[in-house]
């Protein structure tokens, strides 16, 4: 009699209205559905009776608070203990075998993730000031990857969107530094409503050990953390964009010396797009 099958056709007629009633009293319906119910209730006695049943069920099925088990008083302490344990695992267990530089890079990336999260849940948007911020964050990672000690305290380089890729010598270069990003997890400041303050910095020598370049585009809703992860995975550095269409120009690391390493790097690059659905376009720029 009461059979629900996945994919069964939607309810129709009075049944379709009865199906909305459990949400009517609590304001859980869309404005359109609520109006439908109200209009029907005004003239349909059967529907009014059905609403009475819903209210009866709600009253009957609500479990009195006293009948529910109390939440364990030490629950939060146990959550915190687990978080602390996880932290120990992250920094002490998984990193010792990693070369010092990569270990530092991972920590720097974690710091960037935390810092970037101050702008969450806003999504990665390829436009305007937000784009400049994103470029800073991303190039912050990359600058660190090529040798800077702390991307949070370094000036970093990016090219303006109007510059075409691969225009060494004619590109205009800007430097930005964040003002007072959080230093660590416990001292992170609350998210600023207006975002971070930036200041321009005088030019410093650019990084000239770049490899081939590529054009990339992410889905607009891609979280910033994911962008950082993807670019960091291939040691890429943003050198241009975003264009009006959201394209970024990235510089890949110089080709490895050995054929085996070159082959491995090519394989990673070739598999990047299929491995990350948020990366909607990736194409190497021919020199």
């Amino acid at each position, binding site marked *: *009699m*009461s059979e*629900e099958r996945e994919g069964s056709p*939607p*309810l129709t007629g009075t*049944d*379709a209205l*009865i*199906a909305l009633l*459990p*949400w009517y*009293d*609590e304001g*859980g319906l*869309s404005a359109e*559905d609520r109006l439908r119910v109200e209009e029907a*209730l005004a003239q349909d006695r059967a529907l009014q*009776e*059905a*609403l*009475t*049943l*819903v*209210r*009866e*069920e*709600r*009253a*009957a*099925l*609500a*479990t*009195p*608070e*006293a009948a*529910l*088990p109390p*939440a*364990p008083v030490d*629950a*939060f302490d*146990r*959550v*915190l203990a*687990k*978080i602390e344990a*996880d932290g120990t695992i992250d920094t002490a267990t998984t990193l010792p075998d990693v070369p010092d530089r990569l270990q530092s890079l991972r920590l720097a990336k974690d710091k960037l993730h*935390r*810092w970037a*999260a101050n702008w*969450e*849940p806003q*999504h990665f948007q390829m436009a305007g000031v937000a784009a400049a911020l994103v470029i800073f964050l991303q190039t912050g990672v990359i600058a660190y990857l090529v040798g800077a000690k702390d991307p949070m305290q370094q000036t970093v380089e990016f090219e303006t969107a109007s510059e075409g890729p691969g225009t060494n010598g004619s590109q205009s270069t800007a430097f930005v530094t964040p003002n007072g990003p959080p230093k660590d*997890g*416990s001292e*992170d400041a*609350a*998210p600023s409503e207006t975002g971070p303050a930036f200041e321009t910095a005088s030019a410093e020598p650019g990084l000239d050990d770049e490899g081939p370049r590529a054009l990339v585009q992410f889905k607009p809703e891609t*979280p910033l*953390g994911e962008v950082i992860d993807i670019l960091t995975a291939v040691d890429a550095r943003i050198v241009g964009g975003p264009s009006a269409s959201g394209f970024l120009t990235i510089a890949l690391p110089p080709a490895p010396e050995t054929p085996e390493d070159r082959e491995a790097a090519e394989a990673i690059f070739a598999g990047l797009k299929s491995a990350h659905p948020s990366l909607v376009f990736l194409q190497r720029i021919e020199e």
Partner: protein
Amino acid sequence: MPEAQPHTQDKASKPTARPSPVPSTAQEDQALMARIAAQDKAALRPLFDRYHRQIFHYLCRFTRDHGMADDLANEVFLEVWRKAGSFQGRASVRSWLFTIAHNKAVSQFRKQRGTALDDETANRIEDTAFTPHETVQARDTQRVLRACLERLSDKHREALELVYFQDLPLKDVASILAVSENTVKTRVFYARQKLCEIARAQGLDRGWP
């Protein structure tokens, strides 16, 4: 069918003992999530205080195992800590928490079904039979309905739980259960019908369906 009552928004007719959501705003929750994503442990506490009890009780009713509910509720907040950066604000934070809780409970059931816990699994399958003791105890409508709720399948019981206990909007229930709004409406409709059928078998004819 019982005598029809005028349809009103009379809140006084609603139960007073059921747990109500802790007052909060979406903006406050979002701000807390942003801080948690930035690994600010201090921000986890207010979110925990606001929602842990709701999540724990939801899991208690869903799993019927307080120990498991305790473990899963803690895992929910660990997940919040680990995945806050991926929260994109498409649903409310509260719905997101219930989604995590739902997924963890379902995952736990699946794990158990892969082991030798056949008896426990069987107990979660819809069972319309009352014990003589329950029949004697279920003397009034509320008791009968509560007893009937326990006889519903997990799927139907959880749907009613999210609607009647947690007061979650239709779209949020759909998001939590990862199904369409039409499926939620259909599921709750048939869950209510089943509830009435079980009640009728126990001598409580509510006139519907």
